[in-house]
C-alpha cells in the first residue's frame, strides 16, 4: 500500500461506486487536470500576472491528506437544492465544487412554447423571491422589440413595486442569514416584515408570490384604493425595524466574529468572475445599474449606492441592510411623485380591452380573442435588456422571428453567475464558514437552475 498511485486508483473506484453523478463530481487530485484544479480553487487565480503557481493551489498535497465530502443537495443551509463537494484538510476547505441542476425545469424551453402574453407567468417563477424584477426584465425586452413606450404612471408603478420587492427579497435574505448563523429570532422578524409586503402584493395583484403583475405594455392592474397609506405603513414599519436588526445583529459579538473578515474578495476577482450586485459592490465597485445605466425613472429619484470596502461577509450583510433603507427612500419618493394617467399602454394590439368594452364593441371582442389565443406579433430582432435585481444584473435576451412566441428566450440569472464565486470565497476558510458564504452569496436555486 505504499505506492501512492495504487492508493489513488482505489479511492477513485470507491468514489464512483458510491455515487452516480459521474464527471460532475469533485475528483481526487491525481485525476484532476491542473487547469481544472485551478478553477476549482478559484478560477481567477489564472488571471494575468498571476500565472499558475503550483504551490498556490496546494498541488503538492497528496490525496491521503485530504478528504472529499459531499454537502447537500438537501441541506437546510443551502437555500434550496444546492450541492457542494468539498475537499477538506481537517477543518480547512481546499476545493469546492458546486453541483447544480437539481431544480432544472427547462423554463427557457417552456418560454419558447408560450406567447409573449403568457411569457410573464413563466419568468416570474425563476427568481421566486423577486418576481417583479424578473417580469420587469422580460417586459422591458419585449417592449424594446415592439418599440412601444410605456405610460408614465406604469413606469412609476413598476419602479415602486420593484423596490418594494427588493425590500422583501432582502428581508428574506436577512432572515435566512440569521437562521444560518443561529439567530432564529432574526428569521422570525424577517418573515414577519415580509408578510406586510406580501399582503400588499395580494391586494394589488391578487397573488402573493408569482405575481404576473408587470406585463409587456404596462402593469396588470392599477394600484388599489388607499395604496398610499398601505405603502407608507410598510415604509414606516420596516424603516424603524431595520434599526432593531442593527441592534440585534450588527453589534452582536458572535455575529461579528463569524462575519467580519470572513471570505473576502477583491474587486479584480469579482469582475473576472462576472459577479454583480451586492457581491460586486461589497468589493468597492460602485456599480448599480439603477444609477450607472438608469432604466425606468431611476434618474429622477434620489438614493445612494451602498458600497463596501473589504468584500467580506460583513460588507455583504451591511450592503443589503442599507439597501433596504435606500429602497424605502425610493418608495417614499414614488408615493409623492406618482403621476396620474394610464397604467398600461392603450395600444389595442398589446393591451387587452377592458371587460365592459367586450360586450359593446365587436372590435374589442376581436382584439381580446386574438390576444388571448394567438398573442401579438413582435418584429424580427434580438435584444438584451438588463436590470438591477436584488442579486445583481438580471438580463433577458430575446430573439424574435416575427411570430407571437419568442424564438429564443435566455435569462442571465445573477445567482447562476454569482455562484461561481463560492469556490474562491471558501478557499482556505473553515468548514463552518461555508454556511455563511453560501448565505451571503444569496443564490436562489429557482433562478440558478431555471
Amino acid at each position: 500500500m505504499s505506492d501512492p498511485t495504487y492508493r489513488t486508483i482505489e479511492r477513485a473506484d470507491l468514489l464512483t461506486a458510491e455515487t452516480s453523478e459521474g464527471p460532475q463530481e469533485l475528483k481526487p487530485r491525481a485525476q484532476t487536470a491542473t487547469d481544472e484544479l485551478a478553477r476549482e480553487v478559484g478560477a481567477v487565480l489564472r488571471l494575468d500576472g498571476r500565472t499558475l503557481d503550483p504551490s498556490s493551489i496546494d498541488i503538492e498535497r497528496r490525496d491521503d491528506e485530504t478528504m472529499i465530502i459531499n454537502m447537500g443537495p438537501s441541506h437546510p443551509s443551502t437555500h434550496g437544492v444546492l450541492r457542494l463537494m468539498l475537499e477538506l484538510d481537517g477543518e480547512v476547505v481546499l476545493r469546492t465544487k458546486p453541483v447544480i441542476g437539481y431544480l432544472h425545469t427547462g423554463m427557457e424551453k417552456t418560454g419558447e412554447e408560450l406567447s409573449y402574453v403568457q411569457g410573464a407567468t413563466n419568468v416570474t417563477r425563476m427568481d421566486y423571491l423577486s418576481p417583479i424584477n424578473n417580469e420587469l426584465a422580460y417586459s422591458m425586452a419585449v417592449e424594446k422589440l415592439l418599440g412601444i413606450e410605456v405610460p408614465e404612471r406604469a413606469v412609476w408603478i413598476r419602479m415602486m413595486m420593484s423596490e418594494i420587492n427588493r425590500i422583501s427579497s432582502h428581508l428574506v435574505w436577512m432572515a435566512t442569514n440569521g437562521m444560518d448563523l443561529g439567530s432564529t429570532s432574526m428569521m422570525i422578524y424577517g418573515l414577519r416584515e415580509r408578510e406586510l409586503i406580501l399582503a400588499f402584493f395580494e391586494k394589488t395583484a391578487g397573488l402573493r408570490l408569482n405575481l404576473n403583475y408587470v406585463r409587456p405594455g404596462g402593469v396588470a392592474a392599477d394600484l388599489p384604493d388607499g395604496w398610499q397609506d398601505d405603502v407608507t405603513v410598510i415604509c414606516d414599519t420596516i424603516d424603524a425595524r431595520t434599526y432593531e436588526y442593527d441592534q440585534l445583529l450588527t453589534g452582536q459579538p458572535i455575529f461579528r466574529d463569524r462575519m467580519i473578515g470572513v471570505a473576502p474578495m477583491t474587486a479584480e476577482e469579482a469582475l473576472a468572475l462576472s459577479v454583480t450586485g451586492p457581491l460586486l459592490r461589497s468589493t468597492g465597485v460602485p456599480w448599480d445599474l439603477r444609477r450607472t445605466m438608469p432604466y425606468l425613472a431611476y434618474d429622477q429619484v434620489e438614493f445612494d449606492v451602498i458600497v463596501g470596502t473589504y468584500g467580506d461577509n460583513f460588507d455583504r450583510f451591511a450592503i443589503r441592510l442599507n439597501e433596504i433603507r435606500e429602497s424605502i427612500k425610493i418608495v417614499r419618493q414614488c408615493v409623492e411623485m406618482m403621476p396620474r394617467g394610464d397604467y398600461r399602454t392603450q395600444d389595442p394590439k398589446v393591451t387587452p380591452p377592458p371587460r365592459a368594452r367586450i360586450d359593446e364593441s365587436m372590435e374589442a371582442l376581436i382584439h381580446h380573442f386574438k390576444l388571448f389565443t394567438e398573442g401579438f406579433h413582435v418584429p424580427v430582432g434580438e435584444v438584451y435588456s438588463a436590470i438591477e435585481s436584488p442579486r445583481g444584473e438580471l438580463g433577458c435576451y430575446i430573439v424574435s422571428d416575427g411570430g407571437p412566441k419568442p424564438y429564443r428566450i435566455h435569462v442571465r440569472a445573477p445567482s447562476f453567475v454569482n455562484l461561481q464565486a463560492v469556490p474562491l470565497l471558501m478557499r482556505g476558510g473553515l468548514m463552518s464558514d461555508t454556511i455563511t458564504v453560501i448565505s451571503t452569496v444569496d443564490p436562489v436555486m429557482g433562478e440558478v437552475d431555471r
Partner: protein
Amino acid sequence: MIALPETAPTDVVTAEGLDTGVSCFPSREQYHDLVASFRDDGFELLADLCAVDYLTHPGRQLPDGVTPERFEVVVNLLSLSKKVRARIRVQVPENDPRVESLFDLYPGVEAMEREAYDLFGVLFDHHPDLTRILMPEEWEGHPLRKDYGVGRVPVQFKEAPGPR
C-alpha cells in the same frame, strides 16, 4: 455606434444593435482575438454568454459578409468605465459545433459555456471542465435545440397524440 478597439482583428463585420453600443459578427477565427481586444479596451465584465439554434431560419437576415450557420453563440460584454455594452455574435456550423473558450480572458464565463454546451451541444475548446451543468450526466441530447422534441405525457383518450 461605438468604434471597435484599435487592436481588434481587421475585417470584423459590425452593425448597430437595438440596445448596445455595437454588434460584431466575427468569424470563428477572429472570435477569441476580438473578445481579447475588447477586454483590453476596458470591457471589464462579461455579462452573458448564450447560444441560439436557428434551425428553422437558415436564411435569416444578417449583415453582408456573414454566412448564417445553424448555431450562434452570443456574448454580451459590459464596460463599467464607459458605461456601454457590446454584443458579439459568432456563427457556429452544425457539422463542427466548436468555438474557442473565453475562459482564459474571463474566468466567469465557465458556467455559462458549460450551460451552452449542455443545452445546445456547442463545444468550447480549451474549456477546463466541459461537462453537463443543468441536465443529469447521463442525459442524451441537448434539450434547447430546436429539433429536440418536447416531451408529452401519454393520456388515454382516442384523439390524443402519442409521445413525440
